[in-house]
């Protein structure tokens, strides 16, 4: 179980980390992607969140660089990337849980986790799309900051309501 979860996390993590490299090919982005992959692998081997955190931070920085230097504006794949990035972290959490727990894990626990992942990822995707659209719409105007904040709050509230409804 732990090996399968780790492998899934690693594969999805590679895809997420390499996305900025394809969006804006450069030596810097490639180097950063390599570092992020190494950090993620280290985190999976040692079952420590520090590795995953560093990998996520590096991937975020890499994506910001890719957005600033050369990627298409706006990036319509950003919501998918957001959901994929979140899934990598959740899979990492499950892999760590499966590896650290020496005893038996009830199937019901894993089923509940999978249900939560599927339902939340759908809502999270919608929230990310809403945030992106709101951001693009208000980007030209001076009211970007308050609009982005309102959109973020609205997205979160919608996501919470939707997911609660889906889970219960």
């Amino acid at each position, binding site marked *: 179980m732990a090996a399968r979860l780790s492998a899934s996390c690693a594969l999805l993590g590679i895809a997420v980390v390499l996305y900025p490299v394809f969006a804006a090919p450069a030596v810097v982005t490639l180097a950063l992607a390599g570092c992020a992959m190494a950090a993620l692998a280290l985190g999976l081997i040692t079952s*420590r*969140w*520090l590795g*995953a*955190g560093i990998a*996520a*931070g590096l991937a*975020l920085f890499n*994506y*910001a660089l890719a*957005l*600033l230097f050369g990627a298409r504006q*706006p*990036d319509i794949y*950003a*919501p998918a*990337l*957001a*959901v994929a*990035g*979140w899934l990598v*972290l*959740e899979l990492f*959490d499950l892999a760590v*849980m499966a590896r650290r*727990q*020496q*005893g*038996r*894990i*009830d199937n*019901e*626990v894993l089923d*509940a986790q999978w249900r*939560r992942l599927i339902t*939340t*990822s759908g*809502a*999270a*995707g919608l*929230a*990310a*799309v*809403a*945030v*992106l659209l*709101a*951001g*693009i719409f208000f*980007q030209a105007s001076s009211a*970007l*900051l308050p609009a*982005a904040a309102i959109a*973020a709050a609205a*997205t*979160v509230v919608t*996501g*919470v309501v939707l*997911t*609660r409804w889906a889970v219960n």
Partner: protein
Amino acid sequence: MTASATPKLVTYILIAGLALLGGITLGQPELVALAAPLVMSLVLGLGRTHLPASSATVETDVDRCIEGDAIKATVTLNSFETPVEMEVAMGLSPGLFAKPTARSFTFLVGDGGQRRQTMALEATRWGVQRVGPIALRVHGPGRFVTFEGVIDERQTVKVFPKYERLMQGLPTAETQMHSGDHVARALADGIEFATVRPFAYGDSVRRVNWRVSSRTQELHVNLAHPERNSDVVLFLDTFTDAALETGSTLDIAVRGASAVAQHHLRHHDRVGLVSFGGNARWLTASMGRSHTYRIVEFLLDVNATFSYAWKDIKLLPHGTLPSGALVVAFSPLIDERAVRALADLGERGFPVIAIDTLSEVEVTCGENREAQLAYRMWRLQRDVRRTRLGASGVRTYSGAGGVHVALHALSFLRPSPKAAR
């Protein structure tokens, strides 16, 4: 229960904060979109997290068993709120064994539901063993917050030593007045034929030996040895407990004492116990099934207690050592007080058999010269102690190699030249 933030929560907050900050300062809505799932997940998880109201109990299928027996411990968990992921781990005494995979488990409990989980345990060592406490770790929704706590719920299981069978009982020194399985040397009513003597006034006609009487033309009667019981006092030296490869010296002593006591009680002898150590305890000699249980309960509480106080057999109350009782001592012959007490018993006329529970061959000697010298001196010192015991009339046997060897040595003992009466 103590709540603590998980590393996942810290990572999510940091990454989401960085993404939001970067998105707004750089004017990139894509970065804000990247933070959206993380923020939503955080709000969703933390919004539903609260201190769990749960309880746990543990019960075992038996409250007493024998070493090597399988025990089933059932943990019952109740949760009165929304379903939570609960990780349960069981604390066990060193004398109980459970596979690591069977010792802890994770499952969902909630909505007033109840979950029962059975753990397979094995009693590996005699003594009063405890199942519990129960350690609980409850993960909040999203596993952002963890509640940890220990429920002081314990169940006691008394594990009796595995029964070691003696091939034959110990030689009796003096038989007592109660009827038992030992043939006394005295002449009285009994089954075992002893001799024939001329009829005397008061003899029963049923005891007349007609063959001898007709041959000698004078009435003769048969005499017999009566079947009597004997008194055995088990003396356990509990000043020290040395751990060896074949088991600790106290372990050997308890197993050996248990075997000797059960053998003699089965043969209608009276058995007493003395635990002579930092904490001296005793059990006056008695017989019967109830006394078997008293002895076993006594042995379960035997442990080595360190003490500087000088102790001798005057400490024991009158009646603990009945006159003519055979004293079987289990001692590693380490503590001078125990050795002196045994010598004292021998000098007072008690027949004493001492089983040396410390295997000298298992004590390794150091490499350097000083260590070798110290080892030789230690061996010599032990030889001196054995010689001193011998001079006091105490017969010492080596129990090196474990309880089996000690009991085997006891089984082949012959009665001492001192005639039993």
